[in-house]
């Protein structure tokens, strides 16, 4: 388990981390000896890819599937509405 004061991985099989701090552009996230530069501001509770995830692959959090990637996702990238979707009911936003 590779936790830091910046994020937690909730289960060993997860391919995403959960941020425990707000991060800003230019901040660095360190995981497995590799540094990932933060390119967009992300608030705590949001997810970061723990490894490269291919389009169509399941997103695993808490050792359970929470949906599928809609595009290839790089390690360290923010994982949210723009690159994943529900396998059950589409998520609606204020704009949609």
């Amino acid at each position: 388990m590779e936790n830091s004061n910046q994020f937690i991985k909730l289960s060993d099989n997860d391919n995403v981390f959960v941020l425990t701090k707000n991060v800003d552009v230019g901040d660095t996230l360190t995981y497995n000896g590799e540094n990932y530069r933060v390119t967009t501001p992300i608030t705590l509770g949001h997810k970061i890819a723990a490894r490269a995830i291919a389009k169509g692959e399941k997103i695993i959090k808490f050792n359970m599937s929470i949906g599928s990637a809609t595009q290839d996702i790089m390690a360290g990238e923010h994982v949210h509405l723009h690159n994943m979707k529900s396998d059950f009911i589409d998520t609606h936003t204020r704009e949609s």
Partner: protein
Amino acid sequence: MILLIRIQEKVDDNISKEMELKGYQRKDGRKGIRNVILVAYLVECAHHVASEIARPFRDDHVQVIGFGGCYPNTYAAKVMKQLCTHPNVGGVLLVSLGCESFNRRKLAEAIDESGRPVKTLVIQNSGGTSKTIASGQEWIQQTVMSLKKTKQVKLSVEDLIIGTICGGSDATSGIAANPSVGLAFDKFVENNSTVIFEETGEMIGCFEDIINRAETPLLAEELQKALNKAARYYTVMGYGSFAPGNADGGLTTIEEKSLGAYAKSGSAMISGLIKPGDLPNKPGLFLMDIVPDGEPRFGFPNINDNVEITELIASGCHIILFTTGRGSVVGSAISPVIKICGNPDTYKRMSDDMDINAGKVISSNATLEEVSQEIYSKVLQTASGIPTASERLGHQESVITYKTFEPIGPNCLVG
């Protein structure tokens, strides 16, 4: 990894031993932790009069509830009856306009049979707004005095029914607040309390796990049916139980939100499936099926969090554990709401509204076990009469909507 720990050690009985709890003995045998007088309006047209009657008695535990609709609904009548005869309620004033279809006579009879003082005022027969307010206040005045004499008896943890819901969820709810409630629920089950979770519309993606926790195979079938119904209902509505604020807080999909919400149920066996207004038949963990039966109608199953709280209270909950991440402020009429905040930033901004800071699991080194212990103690304190944050702030939301339910099947309760 602290987050997946499920500590099963027997709860420290010291807390309950230290605190001698006293409850209000009702004539129907149930015990309450509050001594509330309800002013219940039976149609929206009587709402203002009911509020005016209660206004001078804010500090005397006089609270307003009601049903807004003019058309009859069996579910609403059942919920109203269960609220008016709830163990935390000592007396009820019913306020009717006069022409609405709510069966006020039947409701008044049920309250009277439960041994509680009840009076019905019909605005159209009482000379209108001012005169009804005056006679209502006169009755409340007398009832406040007479309820001071309510017999108090010893109350134990086993007497408590505790419900849980989440509202204004974000990703911290599932990491900090909900798993802490789950651990607290496990402790209550070990100590023979009754606990209820619900939100069957927020269990998408968790079906297999839920079904494996059923006390009997026949109950497992009933749970499966209830979960399938919920999934279908929300699909027809076109939206999952998911608000834009959930996404702002880092939740991306309904199944992700579900996983977090489901953590509130802890790890005990599921002992039964009830519907709103049904009372659990024994101690243990119960799932409340909140999704209406039959073809979807009347819109979304629960239009807001307070409908869920009201339903839990209608099923006898003395206390509600409400987890939040974005920061809900609500409380409830009748039963105290304990608000547990999973987001440390939200807690800082809105600490007046919160009872428990579960966010310290994220912001410092607190463990879920420690937070769950804190929740357990807070429940006992609240049962002893200490007001929660929302009670201090005067919150007393309550909402009854239209729904259609079939009675639960024989396999839903296990003897």
